[in-house]
């Protein structure tokens, strides 16, 4: 059985914690490990924060959507979308330490953390149209190949 949720909210920083809690609560029935839960919370926080700061330049009157699918009770598919400014150069954006907003004390580590915590990450972006980050994570106890 597939369980699915779709969430849309205003682009204000109050909603960063909200998005983390909502996704955590949605995947709780899968009984993830504490590490897995922390990883998911962190990537939600990274991507939503990027949409607020970079995508919408901190303007509060836009919307961010988070879609979460649970496949086979074990695979989490997370898709986070904004209709903001988009990314000119995706390869550059993914580089560790690269940030277009050093004046905001961004560390430039968002995409590095996301890649490390998720099994698969796809960035789809078009300047002036917006950005979609689609991520997949397989929960460990259901992994066919054990990590040990």
């Amino acid at each position, binding site marked *: 059985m597939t369980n699915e949720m779709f969430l849309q909210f205003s682009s204000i920083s109050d909603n960063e*914690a909200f998005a983390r809690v909502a996704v955590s609560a949605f995947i709780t029935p899968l009984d993830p490990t504490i590490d897995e839960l922390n990883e998911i919370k962190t990537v939600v926080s990274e991507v939503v924060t990027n949409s607020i700061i970079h995508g919408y330049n901190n303007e509060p009157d836009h919307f961010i959507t988070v879609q979460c699918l649970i496949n086979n009770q074990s695979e989490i598919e997370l898709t986070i979308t904004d209709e903001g400014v988009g990314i000119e150069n995706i390869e550059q954006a993914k580089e560790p330490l690269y940030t277009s907003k050093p004046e905001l*004390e961004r560390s430039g580590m968002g995409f590095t953390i996301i890649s490390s915590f998720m099994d698969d990450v796809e960035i789809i972006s078009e300047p002036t149209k917006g950005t979609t980050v689609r991520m997949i994570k397989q929960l460990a106890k259901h992994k066919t190949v054990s990590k040990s």
Partner: protein
Amino acid sequence: MSLIVSYEVTENVLIVRLVGELDHHEAEQLREEWAHKIYATGIKHIIVNLQDLTFMDSSGLGVLIGRYKEVLQLGGEMLVCHVNPFIERLFELSGLFKIVRLAENEKQALHTLGVAS
């Protein structure tokens, strides 16, 4: 769900204790307050106690790095203590341990900085 911050000055060291969640929303306020403390108190080193920090992301890293750069200018250094395994992974990933030293607790960190507590 939010962040509570307390500061303590011991000799030339600012001890910063972070309780709760440090994300972008909280980072913005913390940044200003913390930078102000550094200059208002005339300290040189910083110890960050993360014992009760339950969440942190790359926005939190940005604030730490920003304050590290400030004490570096003052000829000081930054130490972090009580780092839980998850935050330790974030620090490893981001190379933070290249610039910030790890201590077990505040006492050990003060000792490393040559301050008797």
